[in-house]
C-alpha cells in the first residue's frame, strides 16, 4: 500500500497532527492484521497491503453526479453527503435547527483542537490506526444537554469513482447528559473499482443519553469495507446499534461497546448477507465494567454461493460488575454447498451475580415451515425465498422508525435470491 508520509500534509490541529504521526508509526510497526491474529482468524485483509490506493481524494463529483441511485426514503433532519472521499456540500442539507449540532469535519477541524477524543480505544485497533493517520473527511455531531433531536441525521458515503480509492471517514458523536439522537450512516455507490472504505465512529454518551445508530452498507461488489465503532456509555445511557451489511466484496465491522457506569445498556442487532461471492464479518465486544448494565445482541447471517459469513460476539463482565444481564443470539442460514458460516459467541465473566446466555445456530430452513407454506399452495422456490427473507427481516424488529424499517426490508429483499418469486404473491 502506498503508505508513505502522506499523513503529513493532511488537515487538522497540532494535536491531531501528533496523533496522526503516532498512529502512523504504530501502524508501520504492527502492520495489517493477518489470520494468525485470533481476531482475524476468519477474515483475510492482508491483500489490502498490495493495492496501490489513492489516499488523496479524487476531485469532488458535481452535484449532478452525486445523485443518489438508491437513497433511504426517510425524512432526515440533516443529510451530509460525501462523494469519492470528499464532503459534497452542494448535495448536503443541514436543517436550520441542526446547525449547532452537525459539523462536517472538512470545515471544522478546530473542533478537534485537543485531537480525536476517543483515540485510546481507536489506537488499540490496527485499522483505527490507519484511519487516524489518514482521515480527512467525516463529521462531528454534538448534542447538547437535555436536547432531543427528533429527526434523524443521515450521512451518505458514495463511491462513484473508478479509481482505487482508500477512503477513511471519521465520525465523532458526542451526546451530553439526557440528550437523544438518531444517526444513520449509509455507504453506497455501485462503483466497480476495488476501493476501500475504512471508517471509524467514536461515540461518547453522557449520563442518561440515548443514541440510535444505524449502519447500512451496500457498496459495490469489488469494494472492501472495514468499520470500527467504539462507544463509551456513562450512567443510564442507552445505545441501540443496527448493522446491515448487504454489499461489498469484503465487509468487516468491529463494534466495541464499553458500559462504563451503572445502568448503561446496549442493544446490537443486524443482518449480514454475503450472497454473491462476498465475505461479511461482524466482530462485537461488549465490556460490562459497571454493575446493573445490560446488553443484548441479535444477529442474523445468510451466506450464499462462495460466500462466507462470520460472527464473533464477545461479552466481558468485569470484576465487581454485578447484576448483569447479557444476551447474545447468532442465527445463520447457509444457502449453498460452497457457503460457509463461522460463528463464535464468547463469554468472559469475572463476576458472579450475572445472567448471561448465548445461542448460536447454523443450518438451513426448517422443513416444517416449508411444508406449511407448500401445503397452502405456495411452490417450493417461492416458499424458500419467502422464509429466507423472513429470516433476515426479523433483525429489523428493533428499528422503531417505520419508514426506515420498510426501506431496509426492501433492500434486504432485493439482495436475496428469487425474491421476485414471493413478491408476486403479495
Amino acid at each position, binding site marked *: 500500500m502506498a503508505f508513505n508520509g502522506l499523513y503529513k500534509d493532511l488537515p487538522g490541529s497540532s494535536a491531531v497532527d501528533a496523533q496522526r504521526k503516532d498512529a502512523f508509526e504504530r501502524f508501520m510497526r504492527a502492520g495489517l492484521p493477518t489470520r494468525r491474529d485470533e481476531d482475524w482468524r476468519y477474515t483475510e485483509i492482508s491483500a489490502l497491503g498490495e493495492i496501490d490506493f489513492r489516499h488523496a481524494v479524487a476531485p469532488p463529483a458535481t452535484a449532478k453526479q452525486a445523485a443518489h441511485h438508491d437513497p433511504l426514503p426517510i425524512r432526515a433532519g440533516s443529510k451530509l453527503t460525501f462523494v469519492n472521499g470528499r464532503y459534497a456540500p452542494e448535495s448536503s442539507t443541514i436543517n436550520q435547527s441542526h446547525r449547532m449540532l452537525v459539523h462536517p469535519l472538512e470545515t471544522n477541524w478546530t473542533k478537534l483542537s485537543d485531537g480525536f477524543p476517543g483515540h485510546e480505544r481507536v489506537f488499540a485497533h490496527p485499522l483505527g490506526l490507519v484511519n487516524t493517520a489518514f482521515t480527512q473527511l467525516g463529521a462531528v455531531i454534538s448534542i447538547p444537554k437535555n436536547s432531543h433531536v427528533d429527526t434523524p441525521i443521515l450521512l451518505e458515503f458514495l463511491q462513484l469513482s473508478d479509481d482505487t480509492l482508500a477512503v477513511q471517514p471519521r465520525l465523532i458523536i458526542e451526546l451530553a447528559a439526557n440528550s437523544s439522537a438518531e444517526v444513520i450512516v449509509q455507504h453506497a455507490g455501485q462503483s466497480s473499482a476495488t476501493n476501500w472504505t475504512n471508517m471509524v465512529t467514536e461515540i461518547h454518551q453522557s449520563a442518561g443519553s440515548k443514541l440510535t445508530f444505524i449502519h447500512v452498507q451496500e457498496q459495490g461488489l469489488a469494494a472492501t469495507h472495514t468499520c470500527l465503532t467504539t462507544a463509551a456509555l456513562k450512567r443510564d445511557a442507552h445505545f441501540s446499534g443496527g448493522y446491515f451489511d448487504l454489499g461489498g466484496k469484503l465487509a468487516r465491522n468491529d463494534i466495541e461497546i464499553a458500559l462504563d457506569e451503572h445502568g448503561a445498556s446496549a442493544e446490537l442487532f443486524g443482518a449480514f448477507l454475503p450472497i454473491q461471492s462476498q465475505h461479511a464479518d461482524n466482530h462485537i465486544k461488549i465490556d460490562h465494567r459497571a454493575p446493573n448494565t445490560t446488553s443484548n445482541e441479535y444477529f442474523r447471517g445468510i451466506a450464499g454461493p462462495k460466500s462466507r459469513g462470520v460472527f464473533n460476539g464477545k461479552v466481558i463482565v468485569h470484576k465487581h460488575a454485578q447484576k448483569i444481564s447479557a444476551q447474545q443470539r447468532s442465527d445463520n442460514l447457509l*444457502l449453498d454447498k460452497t457457503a460457509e458460516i*463461522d460463528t463464535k*459467541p464468547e463469554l*468472559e*465473566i469475572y463476576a458472579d451475580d450475572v445472567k448471561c446466555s448465548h445461542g448460536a445456530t447454523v*443450518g438451513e430452513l426448517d422443513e416444517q415451515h416449508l411444508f406449511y407454506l407448500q401445503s397452502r399452495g405456495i411452490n417450493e422456490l417461492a416458499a424458500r425465498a419467502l422464509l429466507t427473507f423472513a429470516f433476515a427481516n426479523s433483525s429489523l424488529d428493533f428499528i422503531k422508525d417505520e419508514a426506515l424499517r420498510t426501506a431496509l426490508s426492501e433492500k434486504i429483499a432485493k439482495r436475496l435470491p428469487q425474491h421476485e418469486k414471493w413478491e408476486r404473491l403479495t
Partner: protein
Amino acid sequence: MATESQDLADIVQRKYAHGFVTDIEQDTVAPGLNEDVIRFISAKKGEPEFLTQWRLKAYRHWLTMRAPDWAHLNIAPIDYQAISYYAAPKNADDAPKSLDEVDPKLLETYEKLGIPLHERARLAGVAVDAVFDSVSVATTFKTKLAEAGVIFCSFSEAVQNHPELIKKYLGTVVPVRDNYFAALNSAVFTDGSFVYIPKGVRCPMELSTYFRINAANTGQFERTLIIADEGSHVSYLEGCTAPMRDENQLHAAVVELVALDNAEIKYSTVQNWYPGDEEGRGGIYNFVTKRGDCRGVRSKISWTQVETGSAITWKYPSCVLRGKDSVGEFYSVALTNNYQQADTGTKMIHIGENSRSTIISKGISAGHGQNAYRGLVRIMPTAAGARNYTQCDSLLLGDQCGAHTFPYIESRRPDARVEHEATTSKISEDQLFYCRQRGLTEEDAVNMIVNGFCKEVFKELPMEFAVEAQNLMNVSLEGAVG
C-alpha cells in the same frame, strides 16, 4: 449465620484427603532432556528401533515448537530441563508375577486410595492396570479378558508383544507434530495402557486404569491407545489422585482412540489430582491431548469427564467423525476452586455423512477459580446431514471466580444443523431459600443444586464412577458459598 460461616470456613480449609507420599527408591534418570535421555528411555524399555526413531522425530519437531499461549490460562514458565523424564519403581525389572510379589508399600498406597485392586477388584468386576509412576506393576483379570480375545496391558508390554498393532495405530490419531505437549509426550512417554478389542467382541467388563504420580520432580507422560475393531464395544475408566506436594508437576498425557466400523468406545475420566493449596501454591499441570477417531461407519466415541483436580487443566478430548453415521459425544463437568484454572472443552470435526455429535459441558467456578469452555464444531463440506447440539452452562459460586466460554462454530454444509446454547449464572437466592425453608443447611442445599446441575453428565458415568464423582463434588464444593 455466624456458626454457619465457621462451618463453611472449616470445610473450605479441609485438606486434600489423598495427600501422602509413599517412600520408594526410584530408578531415575538425571533431570534434563536431550536425545540421549530419549534413547535411554527407549533402551530401558527395550523398544524396537522404529519406536526409538519415532520418539526422536517427535523430539526434533518439539524443539522447533513454542508452548501454546492461546488458552485462557496463567501458566508459570516450565523448565523442561529441570524435569526427570524417567522414574520407575526400582524392583520393576523383575516384574511381579502376582499381587503377592508387589511391593507392599505400593499396595498400601492403593489401599489408602481405595482402589479396588484386590478382592475388591473382583467384587467390583473391574480389571485394574494400575500405573505407579511410569511403569505398570500389576494387571488383573488378564485371563478373563484373554478368553474374549481382548488385549489389555501396559503400553510397554504391548510394544513387546504386539509391535504390529503399535506400528499400525500409534500416532495416527494424534500425530507427533500435533501440538507442543503431544510432541513432548511422543518423545518421552514412559508407559500407559493399551487396549485392543477384536472384531465383534463386547468387552466383558469395564476396563480401568488408575494413575498415580509419586516421585517429586517427575513429570508423568502416559500414552494410551485404544483400538476397537469392527463391531466391538468397550468402556474404559480412568481415574487419578496424587499425593500432596509443593512443586508443580507436569503431566502431559496423550490418549488415542480408534473406532472402526460399528465399534463403540466409551471413555470416562475422573480427574482429582492435587489442585494446589488455598493460596494456589503447587498442584499438577494437566496438559492432555485426547482424541478419538471414528474411522468406521456407524462408529461411536463418547468422552465423559469429571475434572475437579489439577492446578491447571488444558484438555480437549475430541472426536474426528470420519465414518458415515458416526457419533461423537462429550460430557464434561469441570470444577475450579481456590486458584485452580481450567481451559477445557472439545472438538467435533464432522467429515462423514450424517455424523452426529452432542456436547454437554458444565463448568463450576468457586473461590478464585477460572474455568473456560473452549470448543470447536467444524462441519466439513463432505458432512451431508451432519448434526451437532452443544450446551454449555456455567455456575459461579463467589465473586472472585471467572467463567468463560469460547465456542467456535464453522459450518460449510447447508444441510447440516448446528445448535449452540450457553448460560452463565449463579445459584439463585430463590433456589437456596426454597431448600433452606425445608430444613436443609446451606451446604446441603448448594450440594444438591450443584449435583442437579451436573446430573446430565453424571448419568453418563459408569456406576462406580458416578458415586465417586458425586462425593468428589461434595468435598470440593462444600463451603464455596457463604
